[in-house]
C-alpha cells in the first residue's frame, strides 16, 4: 500500500509540480472537513493546479493509480461536498483564481473556478454589472463551488440560483478528456448539459472554467427592516408580500437568538436585540417604482404585526445589514463550538406552521435552535448549536435534523435549497425519491463517470452504492497518523 501511495504522490507531483502537491500528514488533516465538520475524511493527497491541463493530468494520474478525486473550492460548503468521503485526491481549485474575460457589452464573464464570488462582483461593478447569486459565504466561496452546489443566496428570490447564471462550462471528464458545454450566447443546442452539471456536486467531472451571466446593477435599491414580536408574524408578512404580487430582491427573516449573536460580533449592524424577529426586505428597480413598493411593504408588515419598519438610510447602512445577515452563521460560534446549518425548502404559505413544528422538534430534543433564512423562497435554515464532543447531543442533533427534513417533505418541500446533498443528506434522498427516480439519476451519473471515481460517496444513499460500485476505483482507506 505504501508503495502505491508513493507512486501516486510521485505522479501527482509530475502533474502539478512539487509545491502544488500536499502530502504531509498535517496537510491532509486540515482537508478532512469543509464547512461541515461532521463526516470528516482525510484525503490521500491534495493538489493545487493552476490550469485546465494540470487538472486533466491529475485526473489521469488518479485513474492510473485507481483512486478517486474530489474537486474543492474554498471549502465553505455545508453538506460535506468537498470532503474526500472515500479517500482519494482533493483537487483544490483555489489557485485557479483568474478572471479570464469580462465582456460588459454582452454581459458575461469567463472565470476560472477558484475565483471568489464577491471578487467577481467587485470586478464587474465598474461596468455597472454584478454577479447575482450571493451566498452568505460570498466573501470566501468560489464560483466553482457555487456551480457544484447550485448555490443560492438572499437575492435568489428575484434573480434565481447559480444555474440561472451559468452560460457555459469547461469540464474535465473523469477519463481526463476536456469538454466544453454551452457558451456565452446561452441557449442550449442539444441537451442542456450545463444544466445537468450545475448542482451535480462534482460527481460528473471537474469544472475548470465557467462562463457566467452578469446582471446590470439596479437603478435604485431600498432596504426595509420590519421589526416583529416573533418569527411567525414575520412569516405572515412574507405571505402577504408574496400574495400582493410584489417581487422583492430579497426577503429574509432573522430571529432573536441570531440577532443577539450577530450584534455581539464584528458584523453588528444595530439590529434591534429586543425584537422577536426582523424581516429584511430589499426592493430594487427603477427609483419611482421602488418608492411605491416600499410604501406597500410597510403597510403589509404593519398589517402582519410589525411594531415598526425601519429603512436603511444609505448604501453603507444597507451593506451593514447584509454583512450582519451573511455573518450570522459564523456568529453562532458564540453559542457553541459547532453549528448544524439545516437547509430545506417548503411552500411559502406553510412557513408559519413548519417553523412552529421545527421549534417543537428542537424543544423536544433539548436543542438550541436559531433561525435565519430566505423566507421569500420558503428556504429554511434551522440552525442547531451543539458540541460535537458530546456524543449524546450529537445523536439528538442528527435525529432532530431527520425529523425536521421529514416534516418539510411531508409539507410538500425538499431537503436542500442551496447547500447540496453531499454526505450530509445522502441517506435522506429516499424521503423524496423512490428507487426508479434515483436510478434515473445514477444512469446520468454513469454516463459521465461510469467507474465512480469522481467525488464518490455523495448525493446517493449508501444503499444505492452497490449498483455504482467499481472495484477499480477504490481509495486507499488508510492514511498516516492512524
Amino acid at each position, binding site marked *: 500500500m505504501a508503495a502505491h501511495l508513493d507512486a501516486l504522490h510521485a505522479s501527482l507531483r509530475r502533474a502539478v509540480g512539487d509545491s502544488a502537491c500536499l502530502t504531509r500528514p498535517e496537510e491532509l488533516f486540515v482537508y478532512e472537513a469543509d464547512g461541515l465538520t461532521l463526516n470528516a475524511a482525510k484525503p490521500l493527497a491534495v493538489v493545487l493546479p493552476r490550469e485546465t491541463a494540470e487538472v486533466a493530468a491529475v485526473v489521469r494520474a488518479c485513474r492510473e493509480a485507481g483512486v478517486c478525486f474530489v474537486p474543492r473550492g474554498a471549502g465553505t460548503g455545508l453538506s460535506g461536498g468537498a470532503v474526500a468521503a472515500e479517500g482519494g485526491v482533493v483537487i483544490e481549485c483555489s489557485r485557479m483564481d483568474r478572471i479570464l474575460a469580462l465582456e460588459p457589452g454582452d454581459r458575461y464573464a469567463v472565470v476560472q473556478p477558484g475565483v471568489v464570488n464577491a471578487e467577481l462582483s467587485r470586478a464587474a461593478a465598474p461596468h455597472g454589472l454584478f454577479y447575482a447569486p450571493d451566498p452568505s*459565504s460570498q466573501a470566501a466561496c468560489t464560483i466553482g463551488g457555487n456551480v457544484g452546489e447550485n448555490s443560492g443566496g438572499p437575492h435568489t428570490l428575484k434573480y434565481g440560483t447559480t444555474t440561472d447564471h451559468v452560460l457555459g462550462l469547461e469540464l474535465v471528464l473523469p477519463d481526463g478528456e476536456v469538454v466544453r458545454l454551452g457558451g456565452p450566447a446561452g441557449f442550449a443546442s442539444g441537451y442542456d448539459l450545463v444544466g445537468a452539471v450545475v448542482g451535480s456536486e462534482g460527481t460528473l467531472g471537474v469544472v475548470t472554467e465557467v462562463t457566467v451571466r452578469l446582471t446590470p446593477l439596479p437603478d435604485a435599491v431600498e432596504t426595509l427592516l420590519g421589526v416583529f414580536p416573533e418569527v411567525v408574524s414575520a412569516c405572515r408578512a412574507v405571505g402577504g408580500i408574496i400574495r400582493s404580487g410584489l417581487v422583492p430582491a430579497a426577503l429574509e427573516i432573522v430571529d432573536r437568538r441570531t440577532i443577539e449573536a450577530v450584534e455581539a460580533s464584528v458584523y453588528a449592524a444595530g439590529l434591534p436585540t429586543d425584537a422577536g424577529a426582523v424581516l429584511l426586505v430589499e426592493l430594487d428597480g427603477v427609483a419611482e417604482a421602488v418608492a411605491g413598493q416600499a410604501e406597500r411593504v410597510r403597510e403589509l408588515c404593519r398589517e402582519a404585526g410589525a411594531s415598526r419598519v425601519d429603512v436603511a438610510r444609505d448604501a453603507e447602512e444597507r451593506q451593514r445589514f447584509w454583512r450582519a445577515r451573511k455573518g450570522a452563521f459564523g456568529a453562532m460560534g458564540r453559542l457553541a463550538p459547532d453549528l448544524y446549518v439545516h437547509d430545506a425548502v417548503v411552500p411559502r404559505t406553510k412557513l408559519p406552521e413548519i417553523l412552529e413544528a421545527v421549534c417543537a422538534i428542537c424543544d423536544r430534543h433539548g436543542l438550541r435552535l436559531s433561525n435565519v433564512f430566505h423566507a421569500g423562497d420558503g428556504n429554511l435554515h434551522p440552525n442547531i448549536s451543539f458540541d460535537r464532543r458530546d456524543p449524546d447531543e450529537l445523536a439528538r442533533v442528527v435525529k432532530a435534523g431527520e425529523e425536521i427534513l421529514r416534516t418539510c417533505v411531508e409539507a410538500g418541500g425538499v431537503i436542500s435549497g442551496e447547500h447540496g446533498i453531499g454526505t450530509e443528506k445522502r441517506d435522506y434522498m429516499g424521503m423524496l425519491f423512490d428507487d426508479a427516480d434515483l436510478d434515473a439519476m445514477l444512469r446520468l451519473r454513469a454516463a459521465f463517470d461510469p467507474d465512480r471515481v469522481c467525488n464518490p460517496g455523495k448525493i446517493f444513499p449508501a444503499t444505492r452504492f452497490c449498483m455504482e460500485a467499481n472495484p477499480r476505483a477504490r481509495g486507499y482507506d488508510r492514511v498516516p497518523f492512524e
Partner: protein
Amino acid sequence: MTPDGPLADVYAGTLDCVHCGLCLSSCPTYRETGRETSSPRGRIYLMRGVAEGRIPLGAVEEEAWLCLGCRACETACPSGVRFGSLLEKTRASVPRRGWAGHLEAFALRRVVPHRRRLRLLVGALAAVQRLGLDALGARLLPRLRESQRLLPPIPPRAQRAPLPPRIPAEGARRGCVALLEGCVMPELFGPVNAATARVLTRNGFDVVVPEGQGCCGALQAHAGDASLAAGLAERNLRAFAAARVDAVVVNSAGCGAALREYGDWLGAPGAELAGRVRDVCEFLDEVGLAAPPGRLEARVCYDDPCHLLHGQGVGEAPRRLLAAIPGLELVPHDDAAACCGAAGTYNLTQPEMSRAVLARKLASLAAAAPDVIASGNPGCLMQLRAGALGAGLRARVAHPVELLDEAGVAGRERP
C-alpha cells in the same frame, strides 16, 4: 473533555471557530498559497487537533511561524475568535529553531528592551551606513541582503535624542497626554516622534513623556515569549501609572495594539492603562483639530497598519484627518487593508512569503500612483519604503502625523 497535553491553553479558544471559512480571503498567506493549511481556519484546526491529541505538536510548527500575525482574520470572524492570542500561545510551545531563532531571541531579550544597547547598536549601524559598509556586507554575505534593503537611512544623532519629559501646549490648553516613545521609534523614526509631539502641542495638549518607559513587549509577545512581554509591560505600567493624563498616545500601531492587551497580560491594572491608550490619529480625530490644517499638495495613499485596523479597529480616523488637509488628495487603493509583509520581524525570518505579500500591495499602490504612502507603524514604514524603492515607485513613505505636521495650521507659517 479538558485536554492537558500540548496546546491545552489554546484549546478553549479554538472552540470559538465553527469552521465557516469567512476568514479565508482576508488571510494574506491563504491568498498567496491557496492552501487551507495556511489559512486561519486551517491553523485553528491544527491547534485544536494538537490539543485533542489527534496530531503531534510538531504538526503546527511550520504554520505557526508562516502566519504573519496580521489579525485580518479577526476583522472577518463573526464568531470572535481571538486568533492573535491563540497564535502567540501556540508559538510559545513551538519556539523558532536554528540560528535565526537564537538570534531573534537574543535581540528581543537582550537588545530591544534596553534603550542604551539599542542606541549603541543603531549608532554602529549608522556608522556602517555612512561608510557604505552595509552595501559591501550585503554583497559579500547574501544573508544580510534583506536586512540591508529594509533598514532605512538612520537619522543623524541629533534627531535620535529622546524627547524632553514635558512639552507644553501651544495656544489654548485643552488637556494633557502622555506619549509612548517606543524602542525603535526614537532610534529610527525620531522625526516621527518629534512630529507627533508638535502636532499634539499645536492642538492644545501638554505632552508628557514619562521616564522609565520602554519597549512595549509586542515583538516578544508575537514571538511567543509571554513572560518577557509581561515584564516589559509592567515597566510601562509603573512609568505611566503616575502620569495624570487624558490619554496615553501611541504613534506606532504595533505598540498601541500591545498596550491595549495589557489587561490580558497584567490583569486589572493593565486593563486600566489599556483603556486610556489611543493611537495618535484616533486621538486627534476624537478630540478634533484645534484649527484647520494648512495646505499640502499631494496625492496620498493611506495604507492600514494591520495592528491599527485589525488590532485596534482604527481605520477611518487617519483617513478623515488626512482628508481634512486642503490640497491633499486621498486616493483609495485596493489592497490597503492587507498586510504589507513586515509583521514585526517576519520580513527577516520569512523573507520569501514577506516579499510575495508585499508584491500584491505594491501592485495595488502602483496602480493608484500616489506621491506619498502614509502608514502609522515603524515596521510598515520600513517595509513600504524598501518596497517602493525596489519597485521604482516615486512615492515617499511617511507617517500620517508627519503629513499633519507638514501641513501646519491654515494661515500660519509651517514650522
